């Protein structure tokens, strides 16, 4: 009884929780408390001292050091488009080389899989490539000294042409030298343009060095 008749009554004795009969009850909260409530009691100031200062320094140092460790995997930013001048003054401290974990302690699936290339072929090409590189380098040295490059360049052209078909991805170096050798099929003395340092040094004696 009492439901809807007369005033609404509580099911328990209101005095048990400290409100006297008929006293105004506090407001009902309609919304969540504010995120930054004003505090009557301000917090106590922080502890200060030698220990605290040292630990503060340790904390900040640790944070800085960990950012430079190889364990810090940052998302690669696309800022490499323009090489900033300020870069020279900043990231000069990436001394820590890339880290290799001890694979014996990790599950097998953690190890990165090497890119699979076509079996023994790469090995063969590589060794012959290095050989051809060495040949090319030797030849170029000789060319700087002697003048009968045409004969030798033809030999090389044959050699490099054979290998051109074989290696697509690897060793772009023979191709570079290839171009140089091709360019040499003209009347210009190869030694003239071979090295930037030697520019003018190996020129004919007739030419006077321009002085300004």
């Amino acid at each position, binding site marked *: 009884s009492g439901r809807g008749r007369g005033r609404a009554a509580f099911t328990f004795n209101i005095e048990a929780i400290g409100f006297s009969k008929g006293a105004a009850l506090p407001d009902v909260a309609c919304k969540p408390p504010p995120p930054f409530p004003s505090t009557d009691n301000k917090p106590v100031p922080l502890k200060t001292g030698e220990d605290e200062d040292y630990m503060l320094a340790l904390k900040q140092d640790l944070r800085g050091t960990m950012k430079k460790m190889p364990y810090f995997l940052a*998302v690669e930013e696309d800022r490499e488009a323009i090489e900033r001048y300020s870069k020279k003054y900043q990231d000069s401290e990436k001394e820590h080389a890339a880290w290799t974990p001890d694979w014996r302690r990790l599950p097998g699936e953690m190890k990165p899989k090497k890119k699979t290339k076509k079996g023994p072929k790469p090995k063969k090409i590589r060794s012959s490539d290095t050989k051809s590189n060495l040949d090319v380098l030797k030849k170029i040295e000789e060319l700087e000294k002697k003048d009968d490059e045409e004969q030798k360049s033809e030999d090389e052209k044959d050699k490099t042409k054979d290998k051109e078909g074989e290696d697509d991805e690897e060793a772009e170096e023979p191709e570079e030298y290839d171009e140089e050798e091709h360019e040499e099929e003209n009347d210009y003395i190869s030694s003239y343009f071979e090295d930037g340092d030697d520019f003018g040094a190996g020129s004919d004696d007739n030419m006077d060095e321009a002085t300004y």
Partner: protein
Amino acid sequence: MTQAEIKLCSLLLQEHFGEIVEKIGTHLIRTGVQPLRTIVSDTGLLLDQVKKALCVLIQHNLVTYQLQKRGCVEYEAQCQRVLRILRYPRYIYAAKTLYGDTGELVVEELLLNGKMTMSVVVRKVADRLTETMEDGKTMDYADVSNTFVRLADTHFVQRCPRAPEAPESPAAPPPPAPTLVIDEKDMYVVPRLSLVGRGKRRRSCDEEESGERKAKKQKQDGESSEPPPDDGIYWQVNIDRFHQHFRDQGIVSAVASRMDQTSSEIVRTMLRMSEVTTSSSAPYTQPLSSNEIFRSLPAGYNIGKQVLDQYLTLLADDPLEFVGKSGDSGGGMYTVNLHKALASLATATLESIVEERFGSRCARIFRLLLRKKHLEQKQVEDFAMIPAKEAKDMLYKMLSENFVSLQEIPKTPDHAPSRTFYLYTVNVPSSARMLLHRCYKSVANLMERRQYETRENKRLLEKSQRVEAILASMQATGAEEAQLQEIEEMITAPERQQLETLKRNVNKLDASENQVDETIFVLESFIASTLRKP
């Protein structure tokens, strides 16, 4: 894991290991145990990135793996361990106070790298110490080794579980994941190494250095072809031992402030004697006789035997019950009540927080409830001698913030509210948990604010770094005072002011994080002690 813990772990991982590791770490903390494939598909990151991140997390003991029966490997994050990153400065500083600069650097290197072999640690620390020494002096490997051995003997560093030796039959395929094991007795055994050498000073390129020496140095620094003698024996920091040390420190300082210096020294002696005999999770130390304690007191303290007995009696009679008497043989057997001590520390923390947040009258009611356990509304008003209206207000404020709770005791089986006692009480473990949750939230807020402050001033910070770098390079090449002055003036006075303010704020926020972590430690230790069987 509560949302607050997950958020804090996420911030810690991001700040110390970067976004990729953070993403994977947070994902594992949220979802629990997962295999590699699921992690990749759920996080949307590349397989390569996930692998690298997992390697980093495993290296730092933040993630563990388990080989399941079906041959699948599952990974689990250790949320609690991630939260410990907050305490790293405290571990390092403790090592410094106990074992000097060498100890400090050993612990720091181990924390920075997760796990390392002893030979690598010794080499790195010797190099670092040599950097700080005067010209011409270098640090001997033997000194560093000695400190390392002492750290191992006192259990501050421990060995990591070992990977099994190479299988006998190489024809059999290796298991998908190695099972790492460690024997209890091997955990602190230092391998017999003869580490001979001295630290090397890292020279900048400007200084004169003949090409010959440079080449030789590079050869020494690079990887030698043969594996080191302690290959495969890794060491890590034993954070439980550090926690034991902090707990002992807390108890000793509590006794010192409650009683006096001498009592605290006695308790410190008792704790030191129990370091190796009592496990860190025991409720009380092994009983120690008064005679033993007398013999073990530090050399400086020459108090008489009778004086010691008096102190011990006083300590045992103290209502806080830090020390208990367990027998009368040997001049009296005494123990340190570890669980009770932790409970006292946690309760004191609670009381202090109530006092600072709500005022001293609320604190009076709180302490009253702690003492009397259960009180009715009316009784609270009477005992605390506070007017009814105010007492009511304070109780409800504390109730709404969960510092105080209501216990219903029905008089009749039908639980009718008019015939039920409502008693106010303080449930200490529950309040401690609530407060701990609040602490995690506080630290997360502090970190967010600090990162915000740094972000807002990013442009200015970068400018200031550039100017400093230019100044440094100019000073190295010997520039005039006027030129340096000119460069310094690139930062205007208001900008300098702004930088000062930023630095002050960041320092304050960092120091606050450290201090909140102290509270976290006290509360966590207490809660952990309540979970163990009494």
